[in-house]
């Protein structure tokens, strides 16, 4: 993994975009769910597409929508996005061998598109000796385009269906997060206790009457801190 000779070309962007297409199979249903829930929460198509376009981070959008109220929960939504997307912070650092060679809009613009999938593919490309940082942007742009399409279709479908409160489709959001947990699980020794603590703290905060996003915040940070403490003690 050499940091010398890093380039940023149209060819790299296109190659990244092509290699991102198979991932769309996974992100498309997620986008549909975000669109349907947005419609159910009373967001207009424009508001929904605006959120998807500038936030472009599915799980934080879905979580914010779950806390959505009228008027919009500005503080809670912002805090939820901050907590959920904190995981992106070390990804940029891990891609430093590429990013350090970029300047201006290429650097800060590419960073604006960073998502889990573009990080994962680019980290693999970097390990293979890839030197074209355009790849990172290409993956993200392809995902962004299909994300907008999926969310738009979901919103249109949701607006037609007009889900009544308590409709089973609302469970799609919770189901999505349950499913995401499966590939995140890295074994009981690492994850069991931290995840149990996260659930316990979140439930405790919820039962004691704390509103969103506090149960999420407290549970997530408590679980992650326990996980880190256990890992460092083992090391």
């Amino acid at each position, binding site marked *: 993994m050499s940091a010398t000779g890093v380039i940023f070309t149209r060819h790299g962007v296109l190659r990244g975009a092509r290699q991102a297409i198979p991932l769309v199979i996974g992100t498309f*249903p*997620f986008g549909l769910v975000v669109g349907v829930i947005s419609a159910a*929460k*009373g*967001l207009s*198509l*424009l*508001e929904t597409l*605006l959120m998807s376009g*500038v936030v*472009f981070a599915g*799980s*934080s959008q879905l979580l*914010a929508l*779950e806390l959505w*109220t*009228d008027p*919009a929960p*500005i503080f809670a*939504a*912002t805090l*939820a996005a*901050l*907590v959920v*997307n904190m*995981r*992106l*912070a*070390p990804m940029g*650092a891990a*891609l*430093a061998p590429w990013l350090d060679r970029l300047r201006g809009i290429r650097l800060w613009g590419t960073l*604006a598109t960073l998502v889990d999938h573009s990080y994962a593919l680019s980290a693999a490309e970097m390990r293979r000796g890839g030197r074209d940082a355009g790849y990172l942007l290409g993956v993200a742009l392809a995902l962004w385009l299909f994300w907008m399409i999926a969310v738009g279709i979901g919103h249109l479908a949701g*607006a037609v269906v007009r889900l009544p*409160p*308590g409709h*089973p489709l*609302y*469970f799609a959001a919770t*189901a*999505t997060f*349950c*499913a995401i947990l499966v*590939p*995140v699980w890295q074994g009981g020794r690492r994850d069991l206790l*931290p995840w149990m603590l*996260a*659930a316990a703290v979140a*439930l405790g905060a*919820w039962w004691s009457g704390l509103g*969103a996003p506090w149960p999420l915040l407290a*549970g*997530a940070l*408590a*679980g*992650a*801190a326990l*996980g*880190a403490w256990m890992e*460092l003690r083992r090391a």
Partner: protein
Amino acid sequence: MRRRRLPPCARARPGVGSGKTVTGMTLRLDVLLAILGMALATYLCRAGGYALFRALRPPRFVEVTLQHLPGPIFVAYVAPALAAAGPKGFLAAALVVATQAITRNLAAAIAVGVAAIWLFGLVM
């Protein structure tokens, strides 16, 4: 207590809560501010993380905590949501996890979850 936290208006049909009709092109100031807040927070994570980690080596504990964050985030979200849904929520969640583990297909897992909660709603 099925769907806690939200006032009834938040779950109502588009536009009912705000007292005005929401059309496809509606853009309300409170919604715009919430979206911009989310966008700013997210960009701070994306770019600020890179800038900060490059400028100074964070304590090892912070770095490892961030690596452990994804699982607890989703667990902390899911736990109260399932508790609110009751036993059928936990049953449906178990089916979702099983489907995802077997098929590795997110769409299938979501569909099974929604179908399960609908079926359980009929019988439980």
